[in-house]
């Protein structure tokens, strides 16, 4: 297997052919915030938190969706990038209704974590207070759209791992929302196998188990990667 050598913040790292810049950044031991990315799912490059700067061109590229190439040099923590990341997180908070205090994922939420990581002590952008829906029609799970950040992990895990494709994105722009079936109540969508993978991968408290209350949600975000390696490499990692 061929190897690419590149530098991350000046540190030299070697990653196998086919690795992404995010793999390289992690190999260098650098922490990069991510929200839409999840190991085991295809990358979409939508949350823009993992943007890194290509040292020679100055271009910003999403590390999760860019192939690592020989001789690349990337910067991950320039003041500008940090500034942009904080603004992106503020935009996430301002466009939804993220009230950590009574959220099922309080303390186990990736959005809450990235807010800390980027040092967001408040949002300079006014909150939009969109009036969204809560769908509790499924017997075991529920989706609270107020907490959805449109990372599409649920869409991808359901399509790529479970193969049911219950979820998709409807509408566009600020009106985008995750839908089940023909924008039906989740519980009525027969394609759903109730496997719960969408609950596991949801970075926030948007999709949750009904028997969990405030701060009780436990996610299992390694699951797609484990399933994929089992399926593709026939390697089972029993915990």
């Amino acid at each position, binding site marked *: 297997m061929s190897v690419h050598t590149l530098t991350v913040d000046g540190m030299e790292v070697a990653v196998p052919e086919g690795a992404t810049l995010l793999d390289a950044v992690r190999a260098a031991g650098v922490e990069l915030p991510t929200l839409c990315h999840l190991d085991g799912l295809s990358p979409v490059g939508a949350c823009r938190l993992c943007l890194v700067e290509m040292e020679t061109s100055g271009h910003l590229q999403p590390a999760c969706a860019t192939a690592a190439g020989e001789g690349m040099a990337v910067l991950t923590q320039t003041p500008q990038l940090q500034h942009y990341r904080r603004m992106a997180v503020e935009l996430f*908070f301002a466009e939804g*209704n*993220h*009230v*950590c*205090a*009574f*959220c099922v994922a*309080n*303390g186990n939420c990736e959005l*809450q*974590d990235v*807010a*800390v990581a980027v*040092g*967001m*002590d*408040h*949002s*300079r952008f*006014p*909150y939009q*207070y*969109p*009036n969204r829906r809560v769908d509790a029609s499924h017997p075991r799970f529920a989706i609270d759209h107020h907490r959805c950040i449109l990372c599409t992990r649920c869409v991808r895990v359901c399509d790529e791992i479970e193969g049911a494709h219950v979820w998709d994105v409807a509408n566009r722009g600020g009106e985008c929302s995750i839908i089940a079936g023909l924008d039906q109540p989740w519980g009525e969508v027969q394609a759903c196998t109730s496997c719960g993978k969408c609950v596991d991968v949801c970075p926030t408290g948007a999709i949750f188990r009904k028997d969990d209350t405030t*701060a009780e949600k436990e996610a299992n975000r390694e699951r797609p990667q484990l399933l994929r390696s089992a399926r593709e490499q026939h390697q089972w990692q029993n915990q």
Partner: protein
Amino acid sequence: MTTPSKKLRFATVWLAGCSGCHMSFLDLDEWLFELAEHVDVVFSPVASDLKTYPEQVDVCLVEGAVANVDNLELALQLRQRTRLVISFGDCAVTGNVPALRNLWADVDGGSRQSVLDRSYLELADIGAQHPHAPGIVPELLERVRPLHEVIPVDLYLPGCPPSAERIRAAIEPLLRGETPAMEGTAMLQFG
């Protein structure tokens, strides 16, 4: 070093919040005695009887969002009279629970009417009627706002409520004339 005359003039204010942040402040227990050596509490719902916000306050912890005209008036007044204003807790920082009625801003009647109807008419067991006492019951603003959308804020102390440890870690440096480092999960996490 800390002569009485050098004591900071310290205030806490309770706007639209549940008072949980103040309860957490009281959780500082014996450290409050230490604090009292450094500050004069000149205005506070839990430690002072004054009804008017005084002049020349050094530090003020403001709990709660700005939800009604009284909140607004007090916020503007305290800003004029305070050197360092701290948004104290998630309601002040984000609007949090009191601001949830903003979700109804675009429904008929707006958020103010909707929340009053819901609280005093729809959910009333007996004697359903809107509270009406001009000059006594303050009028609600159409939108609940975090403090920094109304006045400039100098420091943000999030949390619902911020733990006593977090409050202490934020105040201690201030007493030494230093700016606290608001970073990491211990200091910044919402909720």
